[in-house]
């Protein structure tokens, strides 16, 4: 034995990394980045969202490098993100300016501008399509050709760049209270550590970076039993938002001086959550609160769950863990949770030796004898 326990770490690690590369390559196939970008949309969206960095190329490389393990890919993206100097913030965007691809409301059938189903898994039958086994590039191109010719006709005259918000409509009708703009500069959680109690800007950032599964699970818990919420999706939209940056040389705050720096594709959700408000002399009134969810790419479940949690954390009812900001915000980050759990694999020899010493001291010489058991 001797030094075996501690020597040779270097060689072992190198061999382990080689082994890992072998696992990635042993199928003797290379998956190109553009194929990942073209065919793994859901993965790319999720990695960008949890990685908190909008770049399909980087997400695709990360997915390739991580052999499709999402926690690993997110990790790569986040670590890379740490090396990027942050020099500018984009201007505030009104999400009405979204170029909308999909937009639904579960609250009203006839919303101004109409419902747009867009691309969705919602109404597919989850039957494995065995034809995909031998799908060819020719099939693909042929299908695309016919799809495009059918879709060249403009079906409606709706302006997809200026769809009104359902919540604005409700405000106009006086069904929900209008609220003023909160123009307070948001806190950048990647520059300043959160302090409790948090501000909403911090909460929304943590939620939108949250691990999809974790956000979904906690949102589900709030919906099912631990939060007494009964939300309705007021509006869910998916589309591209243009981003602008202030001209750094021209500090005069004029919109026409802004630089357009590109589009991001996002999912945005507003849920309506009924709240009973106590009024004078035991009278009660129902008001609607709005929960907000947003994330990169198309990730509808996460965005809806986020909107539920947003509202939960606004309310902060001490009876539910889903309303406890420390409980929710400190535990949903992918890099943090996977990191700390995986650190259990690290050697703990010294700590264990100390524990052993205490164990012996407290047992004062008595032993668990195998014969006795």
């Amino acid at each position, binding site marked *: *034995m*001797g*030094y075996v*326990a*501690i*020597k*040779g*770490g*270097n060689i*072992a*690690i190198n061999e382990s990394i080689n082994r890992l590369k072998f696992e990635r390559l042993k199928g003797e196939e290379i998956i190109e980045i553009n194929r990942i970008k073209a065919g793994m949309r859901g993965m790319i969206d999720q990695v960008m969202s949890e990685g908190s960095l909008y770049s399909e*190329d980087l997400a695709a490389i990360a997915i390739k490098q991580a052999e499709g393990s999402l926690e690993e890919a997110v*990790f790569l993206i*986040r*670590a890379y*993100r*740490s*090396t*990027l*100097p*942050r020099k500018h913030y984009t201007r505030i965007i009104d999400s009405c300016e979204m170029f909308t691809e999909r937009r639904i409301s579960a609250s009203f059938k006839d919303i101004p501008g109409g419902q747009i189903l867009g691309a969705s898994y919602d109404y597919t039958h989850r039957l494995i399509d065995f034809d995909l086994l031998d799908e060819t590039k020719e099939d693909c191109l042929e299908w695309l050709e016919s799809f495009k010719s059918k879709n060249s006709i403009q079906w409606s005259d709706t302006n997809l760049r200026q769809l009104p918000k359902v919540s604005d409509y409700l405000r106009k009708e006086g069904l929900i209270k209008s609220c003023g703009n909160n123009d307070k500069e948001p806190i950048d*959680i*990647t*520059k*300043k*550590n*959160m*302090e*409790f*109690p948090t501000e909403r800007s911090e909460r929304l950032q943590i939620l939108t970076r949250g691990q999809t599964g974790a956000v979904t699970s906690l949102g589900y818990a709030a919906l099912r039993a631990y939060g007494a919420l009964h939300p309705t999706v007021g509006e869910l939209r998916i589309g591209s938002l243009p981003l602008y940056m202030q001209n750094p040389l021209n500090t005069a705050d004029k919109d026409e001086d802004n630089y357009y720096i590109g589009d991001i594709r996002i999912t945005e959700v507003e849920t309506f959550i009924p709240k009973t408000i106590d009024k004078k002399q035991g009278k009660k009134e129902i008001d609607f609160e709005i929960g907000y969810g947003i994330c990169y790419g198309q990730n509808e479940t996460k965005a809806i769950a986020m909107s539920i949690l947003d509202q939960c954390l606004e309310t902060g009812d001490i009876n539910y863990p889903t309303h406890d900001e*420390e409980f929710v915000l*400190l535990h949903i980050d992918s*890099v*943090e949770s*996977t*990191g*700390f*759990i*995986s*650190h259990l694999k*690290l*050697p*703990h*020899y*010294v*700590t*264990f*030796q*100390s*524990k*052993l*010493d*205490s*164990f012996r*001291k*407290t047992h*004062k010489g008595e032993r668990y004898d195998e014969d006795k058991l």
Partner: protein
Amino acid sequence: MKISYNFAFFDEGSKREIRRAALKAVAIPGYQVPFASREMPIARGWGTGGLQLTLSLIGKDDVIKVIDQGSDESVNAVNIKKLIKKTTGVEQTEKTSKASIIQSRHRIPEVPLNEEQILVLQVPIPEPLRLVEPSEYKTKRLHAENDYSGAWLMLFEQIMKYGSMSTGADHPVLVYGRYVMAPSPIPRFDNPKLTCSKALILLGAGREKKIYAVPPYTEVVSLAFDDYPFRVESFENKKCRICGATEVFMDEIIDEKTGMASYQCNDTSYCLKKLNNSADNQGGDISERI
């Protein structure tokens, strides 16, 4: 899109931010300074707090030593060293006395440190009150209001339950008479090395996003009761089977055949140094004995 990384991984702005937090930590001994912890190329919980400190401090002339659980060759130490090498190219050493920055997990080296050195400790859970109070909001107030009854209560409970204090590692300490601090999971054996250390000791918790410090020559006292004094792990009558050292922290080695326990230095670099010295004197071959 070929991209290469900056010296020491971070952009310079990030390094400055982390150094500012470290400076504040030095100014308020034992106080946990919150900082915007970055995601690192190694996993949270694997030493990202220590690594961020190291990378923010390191210059081209530094000599780095990394140990994990007392060993320079442990997988995680090797891994961190590789990353530092890859992003900085600075010189590395296993000799404690030669290093200018020593990043360590779970141990303080046996060789006394000097004023030119910085010891960076990796911390998994920086909050000494976390076991009694899960809420960060509340523990922050307890620190501010100097109420550490919770930390003492943990020790009291151990005495009630087991008849003695049974903290393994991470036995809480009082720094400069003000802040109670988690010294990271170093064994109790290393706690006395914290007080009036000649080297600056920085502690970094990446996942929990805190940096704190024991500045040089600062008094650090392990919490204990008047009638239950603080005691380090006992290695009485035990000596290292390789170098013969006594009064150091030792690993217990069980012989697979005989089932007999023997002991050897946990600090491998110390062991090697001691062995070399005696080998010089006697002319023996070290490798045979190892």
